């Protein structure tokens, strides 16, 4: 009986692991890094999680968790509420189209993320400019996007490892 409940709990956690990772990514994205030189732009960690699990495990990263990931990022990062939520949903859709068009082999994953990330920055900048009704500085978004693209391969491998070695056994 106890084993059965524990087993169900592990499966429950396994199903929600991508969402929990996405929330963890939101937390890490706003942690004070105390970097010298006042580095103020952190990579889009939540987008990396949404992209990877959205394209590899679409059954675990559905629109609901993507929306709540974006909402949490909006609320904690001082962005207009709904901005990252909408951006992540649009980018998830774009990522699925790109995946179905080009496949999801390891060689193309980085390029697909680069396209998705560029789209995310463009959408976020456009929404922010519309929201503020003023053309905002696109450089910050561009830098944030480039840093995210540069770091994605490391996180991609880490997510693949978690997917194979943690999530899959938990759901077995």
């Amino acid at each position: 009986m106890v084993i059965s409940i524990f087993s169900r709990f592990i499966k429950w956690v396994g199903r929600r692991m991508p969402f929990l990772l996405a929330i963890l990514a939101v937390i890490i994205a706003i942690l004070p890094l105390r970097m010298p030189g006042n580095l103020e732009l952190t990579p889009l960690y939540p987008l990396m999680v949404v992209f990877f699990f959205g394209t590899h495990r679409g059954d675990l990263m559905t629109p609901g968790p993507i929306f709540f990931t974006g909402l949490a990022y909006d609320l904690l990062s001082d962005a207009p509420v709904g901005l990252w939520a909408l951006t992540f949903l649009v980018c998830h859709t774009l990522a699925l189209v790109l995946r179905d068009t080009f496949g999801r082999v390891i060689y193309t994953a980085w390029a697909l993320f680069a396209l998705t990330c560029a789209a995310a920055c463009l959408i976020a900048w456009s929404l922010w400019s519309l929201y503020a009704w003023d053309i905002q500085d696109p450089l910050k978004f561009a830098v944030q996007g480039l840093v995210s693209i540069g770091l994605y391969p490391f996180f991609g491998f880490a997510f693949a490892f978690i997917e194979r070695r943690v999530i899959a056994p938990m759901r077995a």
Partner: protein
Amino acid sequence: MPHATYKRQGWKTPIELRAHRGGLIMFGVLSLALLLVGRAELPFMDKVRMTAADLASDVLGAGAAVSDAVSGAIDYVSNAADLYDENERLRRENTELLAWREKALEQERQIAAFEGVMEILYTPIEGITAASVIADTGGPFSRALIVNAGANKDVREGDAALDRFGLVGRVVKVGARSARILLLTDSASHIPVVIGESGVRAILSGDSDGLPEIRFIPPGATLREGEQIVTSGDGGVLPPGLPVGVVHLRGAEPPSATLYADAGRIEVVAIKRFNVINDVDVPPPVAEAPPESTDETVAANPQPAGR
């Protein structure tokens, strides 16, 4: 729907694909609705934001502790290499500071005597709360910090936040267990300041490049490189006399301020509560210019600097 479409996209049944598409549309519309509601700047949205910060404060606090430990370890390793030079520098600095200390004590006695004679009432500091920085919004939207003290520690909107060097910003939102501090570098930050020995009053406005601009300088006023900037207390925005930074001249561009506070490395802030005195015209204390000031001057911009 062709049979192969949902299979090719990794779904087990067509219903899963339809549910996924329906979810995308539903949550997309909801996000758009939230954006429109947020545009109306309803106080409700601020409450939701601070509630989220309160809920996350414990996790953020633990994460910030880990971040502190990691950055502390990196600092330790990088500083170990030049301990000798650092020791020499500190010895020299200590000698200079002892001289400054004597001067400060003398001035403190003089000020107390003047205050006694003139019966000046400065804006009283009601209390100080120490708070740890648990989040740095770190995005392109704003420059703000979240600290782990809120209404539970009697933090109020408008309170001044300082690190060990100078003013960091002011409290703009207060939750039950957390508060949001708008940094001086945020483009929405505008604080009244007074500059150097001449007592020139101006407004310090945040700028995205991390160097806040000094704006609305009175016509005919001149600023010197390195002059000290302190809060003026005008309008009751902040208490007078809080150290902010020094003047940095930039040629044709409006002068900016090099802040004393290092916003990127703040771990703890002191939040100062104060009472605004509106019926007393209080002259702000004017700090002495630092000895390294140069004679370089700039003519004040007769028009407010545009952005």
